């Protein structure tokens, strides 16, 4: 089993939730922000010493939910702080961005890190389409074309032009080109049926898929089956290693301590960080074809609502989170693996405002007592 350490880089100094999204940035204190970036980058670098396979981060806009408007900047810092751990950008919100710039920045990260980039091509959550003023209806088709364009930019040895539906570039030849050949490992979302099928249709690039915010293991298993089936129909047979399952994770010395830490962290996460996002998300989902049908839209909204209202014990049971002593967490991982057949876990350990000392302790417990038990799994 491969295990990633993921960081959302949340803002932890809120004593009341922002009244709206976008959150007024007067609430952001740059001096405290500088200290947070230092701590968070230290923590991500520490993940290498704890034996995690990847250090992961992602992109969000206009909110205390996450302080990475561009996760490639954090990835860039990590190229200078780490030697072996893979740097997983999970990922750039490609339909919102200039795909050529994404190709270039990812290639820079890959070369600067000596081939350690994992390149996420992510559609993003709905409200980000307000942030960058892009049409949510076009999000999936933009993603599809942008991926094709980025792969060309990475692999074409000669300058080329691109005449697309959404993107036109008369002459492209990125410098640098990526370190990994023929191209960096890419990761797509399989968090719902539509995304899982979309990922399977990209079989020619042998993508990994990632799935987070699991609310129900049976639903998750069906999405992964869709990915595997569509991939095989298109000539790629994914292995366990090609499937990453993300969990909010708390490892502590005892089950009780872990659950208490998780409860408090989730309180902050759900109220302070998530509350103002929800209205904006709902607005986009209701007023666009961000999801292609009502069932997918409602499924997403219901899932978030369910996750928000569910006690820690039930979240563990549902396979949403990993929480407990090292031995308990190992048992939880084994149970979920038996159901989903994945070979890669992503641990998001900074839940809300959970104290950094507790996270460091959790990372050490992972190193000493969880990792050895998962190596042969």
């Amino acid at each position, binding site marked *: 089993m491969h295990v990633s350490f993921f960081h959302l880089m949340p803002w932890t100094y809120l004593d009341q939730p922002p009244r709206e999204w976008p959150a007024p940035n007067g609430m952001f204190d740059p001096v405290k922000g500088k200290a947070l970036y230092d701590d968070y980058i230290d923590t991500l670098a520490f993940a290498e010493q704890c034996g995690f396979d990847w250090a992961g981060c992602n992109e969000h806009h206009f909110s205390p939910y996450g302080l990475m408007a561009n996760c490639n900047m954090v990835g860039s810092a990590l190229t200078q702080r780490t030697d072996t751990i893979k740097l997983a950008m999970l990922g750039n919100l490609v339909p919102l961005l200039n795909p050529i710039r994404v190709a270039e920045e990812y290639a820079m990260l890959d070369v600067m890190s000596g081939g350690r980039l994992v390149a996420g091509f992510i559609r993003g959550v709905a409200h980000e389409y307000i942030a960058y003023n892009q049409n949510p209806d076009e999000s999936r088709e933009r993603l599809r074309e942008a991926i*094709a364009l980025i792969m060309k930019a990475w692999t074409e040895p*000669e300058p*080329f032009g*691109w*005449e*697309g539906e959404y*993107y036109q570039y*008369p*002459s492209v030849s990125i410098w640098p080109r990526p370190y990994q050949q023929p191209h960096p490992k890419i990761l797509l979302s399989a968090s719902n049926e539509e995304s899982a099928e979309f990922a399977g249709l990209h079989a020619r690039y042998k993508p990994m898929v990632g799935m987070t915010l699991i609310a129900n293991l049976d639903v998750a298993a069906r999405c992964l089956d869709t990915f595997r089936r569509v991939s095989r129909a298109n000539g790629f047979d994914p292995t366990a290693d090609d499937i990453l399952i993300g969990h909010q994770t708390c490892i502590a010395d005892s089950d009780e301590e872990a659950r208490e830490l998780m409860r408090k962290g989730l309180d902050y996460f759900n109220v302070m960080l998530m509350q103002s996002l929800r209205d904006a998300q709902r607005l986009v989902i209701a007023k666009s074809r961000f999801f292609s049908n009502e069932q997918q839209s409602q499924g997403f909204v219901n899932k978030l609502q369910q996750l928000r209202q569910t006690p820690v014990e039930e979240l563990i049971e549902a396979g949403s989170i990993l929480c407990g002593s090292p031995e308990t967490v190992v048992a939880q991982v084994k149970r979920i693996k038996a159901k989903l057949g994945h070979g890669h876990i992503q641990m998001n350990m900074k839940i809300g405002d959970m104290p950094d000392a507790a996270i460091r302790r959790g990372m050490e417990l992972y190193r000493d007592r969880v990792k050895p038990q998962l190596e042969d799994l």
Partner: protein
Amino acid sequence: MGDPWDWGTFREEQADLPTGTLHYARAGEGPPLIVLHSAAGPRPSPVMHALAARHDVHMLTAPGFSGTPRHRGVDDIAGLARMVGSFLERFGKPVDVMGESFGGWLALRVALHFPQAVDHLVLEGPAGLREEQPAPGVPRIFAREATAPAAGPYLDANRAAFAAYGGGVFDAELAGRLGEIQARTLVLMGTEEEVIPASTGRRLKAGIPHSHLTYVYGAGHGLEYDAPERVGPLIARYLERGEAFLVRQAS
């Protein structure tokens, strides 16, 4: 013209050449544009109609295609190129030449052997440079079935004519002499191309001194039918502006 297509303003004309009578369809006014067809034979695609709005389009029928007789001594791609070269003499100045698939191969040969006769060269999924074996299975020609043209009455005969001129081979002489081609060249390849190997586009871009390789997203081999709304304006822009087609203009 005995086929199911809408030829619009195209009319049949012919020219007497030393090797025989050359048939062609002609429409539009403006700078001459010589069009060399694919192995399917000449067809009035939406792109042809669009180009006829600003060019004097001459869509030549290679002898032996679409029920026309073969020409004396015109037995291979070099012979075809000589025949096209003799037709180009009548313009008295360099003209733009474009070719699709088989016609792209022929257009490359024309540009190689008659550098003074060719101004811009536009190639759509050009044949003639297949070094590797084709992938197993039947390649898909059109990525968008809904807009694919109806099969014409000469489809089988035209494929036989294509085979008689050498078919989908590797033209080693051409490959070795790409550096001699002086025409400014635009190569179009669909991102869903299954007939022509991807190496063709790269080889042409690397080999022809003044060349551009542009991928048409979502299009297969049948570029003019899969993405006419992008292919037509792109070619028109290139023919009008030359190298400056790289520079974006106010829309």
